[in-house]
C-alpha cells in the first residue's frame, strides 16, 4: 500500500477576543474547495460555516512518569483518531484552542502519540494577539506568554486600534520572546491564508530552507562598514543624531566577505564586553578597542583615525551610519571614502520578559559526544523551561549538515544535505523561560572541536 499523505494540522491559539474565529472563517471561505475539519475548545465568538466543526473539551493527560513532554491532549487524540477513520480524508485540520491553553501538550500530541503522528503532521502554531490588549495580557498570564513563545507565526491583530509606535514596541517585545516567529500585522485577521497555513514549521527538511536567517544572533552593535585605507590620517565625521554618545570598535586587517564580517563580529563582542574608553571630538580613536564617542555637542563633529599601512578597516558601530550620517574622510584631500561593504546586525535589546530567545551561532565543528552530553544535560535540567528549539549543527567527521528541532524535551534531529563548499557552522535557537544565555553559550562553545 502507498504511504498515505499525512493530513496537515494548524493550531490556532490566542486569547478570547483576539480574532481566532474571524481568522478561521477567513481561512474556510478562502479554502472553500477543501475539506477542512475544525476542532474547537471554546465556543466561538461568531459562528463557523462550511466546515465540520467538532467541539471538544480540553483534556490534559499527564503520564505516571511525571514527564512534561509526555503530557498530551486526550480530546485531540480522541477526535483525530475518529476523523482518520473516514474513507474521504480531510485535507486540513485546524485546532482552535482556548486562550488559556498550554501549547506544549497540544504540540506534543503530534509527536508522542504514534496513532496520531502516523496520520497527521503538525504544520504550525499560529498565535493571534490583540494589539490593543496585549500589554495587559502579557504581564499577567503564563499562557499568553507561552502561546507567543511557541508560535511559528504571530498575527498582530486589531492594529487599527493601536498607534504605529505602540505596534513597533509590541513587535519588538514579541520578537525578544520568540526570535523564530514571523510577525504579521492585521486589522481584522485579514492575513493572506498562505502566511498561516502550509508552513511545514515542524518539518526538518523545510523549516530551514524557508527562513535560513531565522536565527540571526544578536550583537551589541547595529551596523558595520568596511573601508579600504592607506597610510594616512583620516577622520570619521558625525552629524547630529538621536543619541548623545555611541559605542564603536574599529577593527584592523578586516576582510570583506560576509564570513569575515561575522568572524570579526564575534571578536567585537569580546571588545564590547570590555569597559569603553571615552573619546571626545577631535581626539584619536585607538584601533581594536571599545570606545564611546562623545556626541553631546551640537552640529557636526569628527574623530581622528591614524593609519600606518594599507588595509581594510571595519567600523562596528552601535548605531547605523544612516542615523548619524557617518562618513570616513581622508584628511589631506577631504575626500569621502566610500564603504567597500556594509551590513546591519540584529541589535540586542533589553529583556524584560521572563520568556526569551537565545541564538547561538558558531563556525566550526562540534564533537558529537560532547554535544550529546551537553544537550541531555540542558534538556534534563531546563527541558520544562525550553519551549521550542531549532537549528543546525556541523558534527565533526560527518560530511552532512544536521538539522534539529524540538518541543520541551522532545528532540528530533537528522542529517540533511552535504556541506560541500559551504562554510561549516552551527546555529541554534532556544526559546524558553529564564534561560541563562551566558551559560548556554559557554556550554555549547565547550562542545566545539
Amino acid at each position, binding site marked *: 500500500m502507498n504511504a498515505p499523505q499525512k493530513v496537515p494540522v494548524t493550531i490556532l491559539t490566542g486569547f478570547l477576543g483576539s480574532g481566532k474565529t474571524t481568522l478561521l472563517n477567513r481561512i474556510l471561505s478562502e479554502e472553500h474547495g477543501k475539506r477542512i475539519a475544525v476542532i474547537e475548545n471554546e465556543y466561538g465568538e461568531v459562528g463557523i460555516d462550511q466546515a465540520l466543526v467538532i*467541539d471538544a473539551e480540553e483534556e490534559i493527560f499527564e503520564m505516571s512518569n511525571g514527564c512534561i513532554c509526555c503530557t498530551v491532549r486526550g480530546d485531540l487524540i480522541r477526535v483525530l483518531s475518529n476523523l482518520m477513520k473516514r474513507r474521504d480524508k480531510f485535507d486540513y485540520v485546524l485546532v482552535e484552542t482556548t486562550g488559556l491553553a498550554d501549547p506544549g501538550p497540544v504540540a506534543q500530541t503530534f509527536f508522542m502519540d504514534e496513532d496520531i503522528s502516523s496520520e497527521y503532521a503538525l504544520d504550525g502554531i499560529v498565535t493571534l494577539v490583540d494589539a490593543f490588549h496585549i500589554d495587559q495580557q502579557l504581564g499577567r498570564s503564563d499562557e499568553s506568554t507561552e502561546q507567543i513563545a511557541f508560535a511559528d507565526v504571530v498575527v498582530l491583530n486589531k492594529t487599527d486600534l493601536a498607534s504605529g509606535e505602540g505596534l513597533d514596541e509590541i513587535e519588538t517585545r514579541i520578537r525578544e520572546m520568540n526570535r523564530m516567529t514571523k510577525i504579521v500585522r492585521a486589522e481584522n485577521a485579514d492575513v493572506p491564508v498562505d502566511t498561516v497555513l502550509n508552513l511545514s514549521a515542524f518539518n526538518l527538511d523545510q523549516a530551514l530552507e524557508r527562513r535560513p536567517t531565522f536565527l540571526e544572533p544578536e550583537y551589541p552593535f547595529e551596523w558595520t562598514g568596511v573601508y579600504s585605507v592607506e597610510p594616512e590620517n583620516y577622520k570619521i565625521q558625525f552629524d547630529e543624531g538621536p543619541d548623545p554618545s555611541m559605542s564603536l570598535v574599529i577593527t584592523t586587517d578586516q576582510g570583506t566577505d560576509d564570513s569575515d564580517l561575522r568572524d570579526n563580529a564575534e571578536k567585537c563582542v569580546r571588545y564590547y564586553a570590555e569597559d569603553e574608553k571615552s573619546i571626545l571630538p577631535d581626539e584619536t580613536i585607538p584601533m581594536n578597542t571599545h570606545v564611546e564617542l562623545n556626541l553631546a555637542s551640537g552640529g557636526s563633529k569628527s574623530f581622528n583615525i591614524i593609519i600606518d599601512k594599507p588595509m581594510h578597516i571595519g567600523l562596528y558601530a552601535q548605531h547605523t551610519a544612516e542615523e548619524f550620517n557617518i562618513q570616513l574622510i581622508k584628511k589631506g584631500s577631504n575626500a569621502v571614502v566610500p564603504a567597500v561593504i556594509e551590513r546591519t546586525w540584529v541589535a540586542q535589546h533589553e529583556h524584560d520578559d521572563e520568556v526569551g530567545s537565545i541564538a547561538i551561532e558558531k563556525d566550526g565543528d562540534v564533537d558529537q559526544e560532547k554535544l550529546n552530553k551537553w544537550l541531555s544535560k540542558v534538556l534534563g535540567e531546563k527541558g520544562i523551561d525550553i519551549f521550542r528549539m531549532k537549528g543546525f549543527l556541523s558534527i565533526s567527521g560527518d560530511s552532512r549538515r544536521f538539522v534539529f528541532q524540538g518541543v520541551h524535551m522532545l528532540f528530533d534531529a537528522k542529517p540533511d544535505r552535504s556541506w560541500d563548499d559551504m562554510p561549516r557552522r552551527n546555529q541554534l535557537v532556544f526559546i524558553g523561560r529564564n534561560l541563562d544565555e551566558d551559560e548556554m553559550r559557554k556550554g555549547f562553545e565547550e562542545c566545539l572541536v
Partner: protein
Amino acid sequence: MNAQSLGSLRTGWSVTLDDCALSGGWTSEGNEFAVVDAAGGVSVFDGKRGDLIWAKKNVHDGGALATSVHPSKRKFATTGQDGRLIIWNLLEPDTEKVIDIGTGWAENVSWSQDGSLIAASLSKTVNVYSASGEEVWRTSDHQSTVSTIAWTNKGELATACYGQVQFLDGVSGNLIQKLEWKGSLVSIALSSDSDIVACGSQDNSVHFWRRSSGNDSKMSGYPFKPSALSFNNKGTLLATGGSEAATVWNFEGDGPEGTSPLELDYHADAITSLLFSNHSNRLVSGCRNGTVVLWEISPNNTPTKLGVGQVADTVAELYWRPDDRAVAALDRQGGVTVWRI
C-alpha cells in the same frame, strides 16, 4: 507476501460499505452480522452468505461510533456523534427505541452479558438502560471522557477513563471498586472470571489489576499504544497489540510478572485489532496494513500460524462468530470480510 506458503484463510463472503466499517457484531446463532460505518449507516447481512438483509443510511448525524448486538435476542444498539442511542430490530429496519442521551459523541455502547441492560457512554458520563430502553441509572461525571466500557460476568459495569477504572453495580449503579493509575486508560479486557482487568494505556504500556487482591502491575516497552487487548476464554492468556508482533502474556502460576511473553511474529506493521476465539486458544490478529493472521496456541504455549488473510486497508475490528467457525474483519475502506475457519 508469504500468504500462499502459509495457507490463505478461506473467504466466506465480503462486502464493501460506503465508508469505514467501524463496529459490528454477530447475532447469537451467527445467522446475521450487523455493522455501522463512519458515515452513519447501519447494515445487517446474512451471516452465512453475506446477502444484505437491510441497510439504512445516515441514521446518526455526523457518523455512527459504536454498535452492540444483543447476546441472545435479535436486536442490536448503535450510538453516534449525534449523542443518540438507537435500539434496532435486527430483522427489519425498525427502531425499537431512540434515546437522546445528550449533546456530544456517544462513543461506547454495550449490552450486559445476560442482555437485561444496556450501557452507553457520552463524554464523561455513562447511562444504563433496561433492554427496552428505559433509563435505569446514570453516573456523575468521570474525571475525563469515558474511553471504554465493559460488562463483567457478574453483571458489573466497568468504565475506564484517564486515571481510573471503576466497577459499578449493574442494577443500582453503586460503586463497587475503583482502581487508580495516573495514566490515560484507553481499552479494557476482563478475564472470564472478571478477576483480572487489563487496560491499554496512552504511555505505551498495559496496566493490569487483580481485583481480589487489589495488586497491580504493568507491562511496558511497547513501541505503539497497546489498544488491542484480548483474554482467552479461560482467562489464562492475555494477547496485546502495541507492536508488530502480537504479545501474549501467560497468567498461569506466578505469571505474567517476571516472565517473558510469547511474541507472535508475522505482521509488518502495528497490530490494530486482535481477539481470542470463544472456545479455544485460537487468536486472530489484524494489522494496520490490512493483513489478518489466524494463530493457535497449544497447551504447552507454542504458537502456530494457521492462515493469513488480506483486506483492503487497516483492520478496524475483528469478530469471531459465536461458534468460532468464522471470523469477520472490518476495515478502513468499508470492507466487511468473513473467513470460514
